[in-house]
């Protein structure tokens, strides 16, 4: 007897997934992968992982945080452990406005929606704006978690080229014209203007007004994702896109990089009407963000020197960035180029022609170093010559060792290609849900 919706594939065959025919079409790419499996090894301490974007939490004052959280439960436990509003805790929303003011944003707390990390905000924004087949513009490369959300809602991603000054306005115009010529509709531009993930570059201040103007002219919303904006190594900040166009920008922020990623507290700042829809969408997704975690962040912001903590983070990351750049200079074979970030977590490395960083990853893991191959950061199969190197988590000494190992891996791969010639790239899977290895 076959259960409804379940059909055996062939007579007497045993499928290990009786639900196979029930899944939505969008699950087609959700399969086991050799490359994902390799990251199980990358998490071992023997491997220098330059893959994951994990913040350097050892810089946190754990003792005082522990006391604060204990005190929170003792004094406000019945609130902290209770359901809350889908909109978020009011006091935290006020504090978020103070945080955003550091980058020139003037906002009302009512327009802030607290989310389970900014990843959820991204998901909600895509959910309320995108029908299947709608076009989203995103820098090429772009954040893998955003590409995963866009894919989940069956939006089509069109990449816009960047250079060392971030997104190129002329390329944005070209992309918009090309999409219009195809009769398609662009719903929004997704952009990470500051210390880009994965490219490490920052949108030049001189380009910001032009990007906003182009989007306005074409009736395209801007989704500004800014998790790294306060992590400029010299303490510099850039004016948020939202600060000069409040009506056409949805701004996404996060405490994951400036405080603690595990709390999963982020937010969206949106024009009033959009915010209303985001709250309703968030309600159906999670009812409310975790009250306890919101109150932990709120207490932290009110009782700790959070700006001092960000400075501590910045200095730690600058030291790591310096270690990575000097090791790259020292060890990388000819033909490699890389970006030189002024903030954030990442360097974007381009390897010589013909080398496929995804196909090379097993060799790297064998030599006890890991990275995020570039194809995961594109929706259109580009990126095979690139990789993202994260300097946020390992110590400077480990970073140097990791880069040294990576250079050996590349030398081996270059030899292999010298033997067999440039080879066409193998299969590439599209973006999937972000993992700590690539997020």
């Amino acid at each position: 007897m076959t259960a409804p919706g379940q059909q055996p594939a062939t007579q007497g065959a045993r499928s290990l997934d009786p639900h196979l025919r029930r899944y939505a079409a969008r699950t087609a790419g959700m399969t086991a992968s050799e490359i994902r499996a390799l990251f199980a090894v990358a998490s071992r301490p023997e491997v220098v992982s330059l893959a994951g974007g994990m913040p350097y939490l050892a810089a946190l004052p754990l003792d005082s945080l522990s006391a604060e959280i204990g005190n929170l439960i003792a004094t406000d436990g019945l609130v902290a452990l209770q359901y809350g509003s889908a909109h978020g805790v009011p006091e935290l929303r006020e504090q978020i406005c103070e945080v955003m003011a550091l980058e020139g944003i003037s906002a009302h707390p009512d327009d802030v929606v607290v989310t389970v990390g900014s990843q959820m905000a991204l998901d909600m924004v895509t959910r309320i704006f995108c029908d299947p087949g709608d076009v989203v513009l995103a820098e090429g490369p772009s954040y893998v978690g955003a590409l995963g959300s866009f894919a989940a809602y069956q939006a089509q991603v069109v990449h816009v080229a960047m250079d060392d000054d971030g997104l190129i306005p002329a390329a944005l115009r070209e992309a918009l014209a090309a999409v219009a010529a195809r009769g398609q509709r662009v719903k929004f531009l997704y952009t990470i203007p500051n210390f880009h993930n994965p490219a490490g570059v920052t949108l030049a201040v001189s380009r910001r007004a032009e990007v906003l103007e182009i989007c306005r002219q074409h009736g395209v919303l801007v989704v500004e994702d800014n998790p790294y904006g306060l992590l400029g190594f010299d303490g510099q900040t850039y004016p948020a896109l939202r600060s000069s166009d409040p009506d056409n920008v949805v701004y996404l922020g996060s405490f994951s990089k400036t405080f603690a990623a595990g709390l999963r507290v982020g937010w969206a700042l949106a024009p009033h009407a959009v915010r209303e829809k985001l709250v309703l969408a968030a309600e159906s997704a999670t009812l409310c963000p975790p009250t306890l975690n919101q109150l932990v962040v709120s207490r932290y912001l009110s009782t700790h020197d959070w700006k001092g903590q960000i400075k501590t983070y910045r200095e730690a990351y600058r030291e790591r960035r310096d270690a990575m750049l000097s090791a790259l200079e020292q060890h990388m074979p000819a033909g490699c180029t890389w970006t030189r970030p002024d903030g954030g977590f990442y360097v974007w490395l381009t390897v010589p022609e013909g080398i496929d960083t995804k196909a090379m990853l097993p060799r790297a893991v064998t030599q006890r170093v890991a990275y995020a191959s570039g194809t995961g950061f594109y929706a259109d199969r580009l990126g095979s010559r690139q990789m993202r190197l994260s300097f946020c988590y390992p110590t400077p000494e480990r970073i140097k060792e990791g880069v040294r190992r990576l250079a050996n891996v590349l030398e081996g791969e270059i030899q292999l290609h010298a033997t067999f010639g440039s080879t066409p790239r193998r299969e590439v899977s599209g973006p999937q849900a972000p993992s700590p290895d690539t997020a």
Partner: protein
Amino acid sequence: MSDRWVAVLSGGLSHEREVSLRSGRRLSAALRADGLTVEEWDADAGLLARLRDNRPDAVVVALHGGEGENGSVQTVLEMLGVPYVGTDSRACRRAWDKPTTKAELARAGLATPDWAVLPHATFRELGAQPVLDAMVESLGLPLILKPDQGGSALGARVVREAAELPAAMVGCLAYGETVLAERFIEGTEVAVTVVDGPDGPEALPAVEIEPKGGGIYDYTARYTAGLTDFHAPARLSPSAADAVGELAVAAHLLLGLRDVSRTDAIVAPDGTVYFLEVNVSPGLTETSLLPMAVEAAGRSLGEIYAGLIERAVTRTA
């Protein structure tokens, strides 16, 4: 029911770490259900201290690839005198190398697809294209490239056109320095588990592997539930079913394997049974072949491994 306490070793640092962790969890649950006391241990720098401080009655090696299958961990267990389930270190070392096992079994008269083993250095020194041309001339197409060591089909590439060879070589050589190129036999792919018992090695029912859409049984097809259909027992004639069982037992004996092994084979349309490779630490995950064979035999994973643990303890005592 047994009151033994055992350590299941899983994880390790091979490319198959994730699969091994899943095997370890599944086996541990099965053994606990059978009444054994089980701890899951990673094969890391703390292993020897744990073995000395908290010595189990026996160890079960559920490591896949690398140190878990090439005899290294087994050597350490032997040096410490810790009983363990599985093939001894010397036979592991031999079985780990695919070309060696093929050569030994071919010498014993068993059929195995024609093959060639070539390190990267040979292509580099003699020129890739002439060597690839000779390979195609000798083995024909299609052929399958595999790393000479390792499992889970990691790095395996089926090549149907000569033009695909350079890219497939690069992909395969990412997993090791030497490639085993083998004539690709179209036919019914089966896996046969062999378990040692009081009356000698016994072949469990063969499991037939049928990747959907005519694809190959690669890593994705192996570990994504639903992408492959399985038939246990395999849809073979009685004589073919006997032949694959005999092949697996012969491989187990000829290679000196112990306790449990899994032989992968192809039954060609003309009925010839070809040996492909043998695994001394078969996968035990939700999508693995050994648990399906155990179920088809009307037995349980816990019962079989509890029996093997008793054998390990008593042979050392």
